[in-house]
């Protein structure tokens, strides 16, 4: 750690991991509800478990991004953070808002929560991933603005590097596109149309910039490769992301009532979306192969390489699988989507956050890397989580193919629930793989407490 104020990243990382645990627990509950429908009913209905599972994911990733920015920006800008105090205040505000929201989801029926929180003044709730009550949404905007102010001021007073500029662009984009969560036209087509401006343009647009910047930062640190080389890669990757990802939004516009040309636009551009992810993989391996130093943090290197590979597989390959309109005609909203969602989120955004945490956390704790035994444990957790997500994805893909075949093809297509009964086996296997994932996560947390000989940070 080169600057004292980088320390504010630590609570963000800790909160991120804690919420990650919550996300996985609710995932397991929900996975079990797939096979035993009334499990925990009426205390935690399926729709609530799902909402908590996905919302916690998003919130902990945001905590991770913010922590990463607070760590990365002072070091890139070569100056102390504009206001560490502000960063800590927003941390507690964001954590409290997040916790209250989850309590709200669990304590009262969703409709009651909507009534209590003023949804009748400005209706924004009831839409997948954007279920947050109005006060939470406003809180997110305020926290985001304060956060952006803080890091933008830091960059303005310090050195401006490509990495911090790309990161800033990504984070500002994140805030701007979130504003569409307040826009909820009564026309369902328009509603969905702009809903994707938040959802798609986050994960297949501006978040990729954040991912690229975080990965580039860690790669510079652990490989010692020239900044110029890494920045050039970053620019090309970012350009490709934006070229393919923005119009690629069209792959969500196939069947929602938008003009037909979206079937072509969406298919063509999103078919190219794997390219930036593929470049990221090549980039990560290339940089590690050309490394100029042997960084003692082997675990961080593993996470960085893993991010490249898994993001390409999950977002790139599994996305391409069902992105062409003629294919999507059959696969839309099936378990194929769930398979893609799991591996893409894990491979891209979970892993890049864990890469950053793996690299920064030892430094925040005053050592250049964790002890070899702690790193071995962390690498075990890497493999357990990664392999189990691969299996979750494969099981869901199998379930999806079968589901589509039974429910949407053939002479006598089955009803939704009848088809679900036929694919139970895969849901059981998915749940089992989920427990292995939890085991990996437990090992991951354990690795933070594992003692052993460590080198002091330089």
């Amino acid at each position, binding site marked *: 750690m080169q600057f004292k104020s980088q320390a504010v990243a630590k609570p963000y990382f800790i909160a991120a991991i804690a919420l990650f645990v919550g996300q996985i627990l609710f995932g397991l509950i929900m996975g079990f509800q797939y096979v035993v429908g009334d499990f925990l009913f009426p205390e935690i209905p399926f729709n609530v478990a799902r909402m908590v599972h996905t919302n916690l994911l998003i919130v902990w990733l945001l905590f991770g991004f913010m922590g990463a920015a607070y760590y990365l920006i002072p070091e890139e800008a070569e100056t102390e953070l504009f206001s560490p105090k502000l960063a800590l205040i927003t941390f507690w505000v964001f954590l409290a808002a997040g916790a209250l929201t989850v309590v709200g989801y669990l304590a009262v029926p969703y409709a009651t929560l909507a009534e209590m929180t003023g949804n009748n003044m400005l209706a924004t709730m009831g839409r997948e991933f954007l279920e947050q009550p109005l006060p939470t949404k406003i809180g997110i905007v305020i926290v985001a603005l304060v956060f952006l102010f803080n890091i933008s001021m830091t960059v303005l007073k310090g050195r401006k590097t490509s990495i911090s500029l790309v990161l800033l662009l990504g984070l500002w984009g994140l805030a701007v596109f979130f504003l569409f969560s307040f826009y909820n036209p009564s026309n369902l087509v328009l509603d969905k149309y702009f809903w994707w401006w938040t959802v798609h343009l986050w994960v297949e647009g501006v978040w990729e910039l954040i991912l690229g910047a975080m990965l580039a930062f860690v790669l510079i640190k652990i490989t010692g490769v020239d900044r110029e080389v890494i920045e*050039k890669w970053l620019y090309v990757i970012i350009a490709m992301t934006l*070229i*393919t990802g923005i119009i690629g939004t069209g792959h969500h516009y196939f069947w929602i009532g938008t003009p037909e040309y979206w079937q072509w*636009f969406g*298919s063509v551009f999103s078919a*190219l979306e794997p*390219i930036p992810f593929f470049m990221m993989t090549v980039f990560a391996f290339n940089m590690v192969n050309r490394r100029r130093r042997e960084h003692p943090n082997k675990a961080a290197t593993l996470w960085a390489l893993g991010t490249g590979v898994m993001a390409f597989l999950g977002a790139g390959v599994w996305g391409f699988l069902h992105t062409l309109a003629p294919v999507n005609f059959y696969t839309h909203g099936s378990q194929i989507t769930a398979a893609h969602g799991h591996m893409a989120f894990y491979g891209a955004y979970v892993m890049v956050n864990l890469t950053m945490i793996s690299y920064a956390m030892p430094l925040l704790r005053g050592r250049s890397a964790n002890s070899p035994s702690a790193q071995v444990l962390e690498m075990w957790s890497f493999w357990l989580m990664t392999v189990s997500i691969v299996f979750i994805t494969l099981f869901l893909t199998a379930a999806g193919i079968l589901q589509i075949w039974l429910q949407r093809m053939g002479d006598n297509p089955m009803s939704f629930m009848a088809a679900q009964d036929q694919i139970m086996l895969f849901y059981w296997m998915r749940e089992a793989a989920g427990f292995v994932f939890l085991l990996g996560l437990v090992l991951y947390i354990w690795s933070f407490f594992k003692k052993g000989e460590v080198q002091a940070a330089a």
Partner: protein
Amino acid sequence: MTIDTITADEIRATPPGDLAIWFFIFAELLAFGVFFVAYAFARAHNVALFDESQQHLDITSGAVNTLVLITSSYFMVRAVAAIKLGFARGCARWIAAAIGLGGVFLAIKLVEFHDKFSAGISLSTNTFYMFYLSLTIFHFMHVILGMVILAAVMLKAKRGGYSAQDHTGVETGASYWHMVDLLWIILFPLVYVIH
């Protein structure tokens, strides 16, 4: 040395210009390539509609634009040749000429778009026009981007930022501009001419 006498030691292992632009060019060609294949695919399913709609395109302005872009590309070749001899101002003038022809291309294209739009044609008219408008507008935007890149290179050349030894930037801009030209050379016969 003139452009006619490129010697063996000029043949390099890496493509001219910055390597990054070649990743970019490759990606752009891929994007257009996918679109061209999609066009061929869609046409094969509806030859009659495509043939009928094609009748209404203005082949003459398309052909003129082809000549305009090829000439513009040639000017860029001269610009690169000039800077290789160390003539920075000559280089800048050739680039200015290339940009000028890019402007001519845009003007002709705008007249064409105006005709189509005032005839009530839109992306939703039929599959052919969807492709015609998407491909040409997409290409149109690339011409604009190319002109911006060339303008940046030209300004740097004017300020003496390039020399006979160090002129990667000029080659980078030229490479991109040739790609814009190449795309049109494929697009024009594919969409306007082939029945």
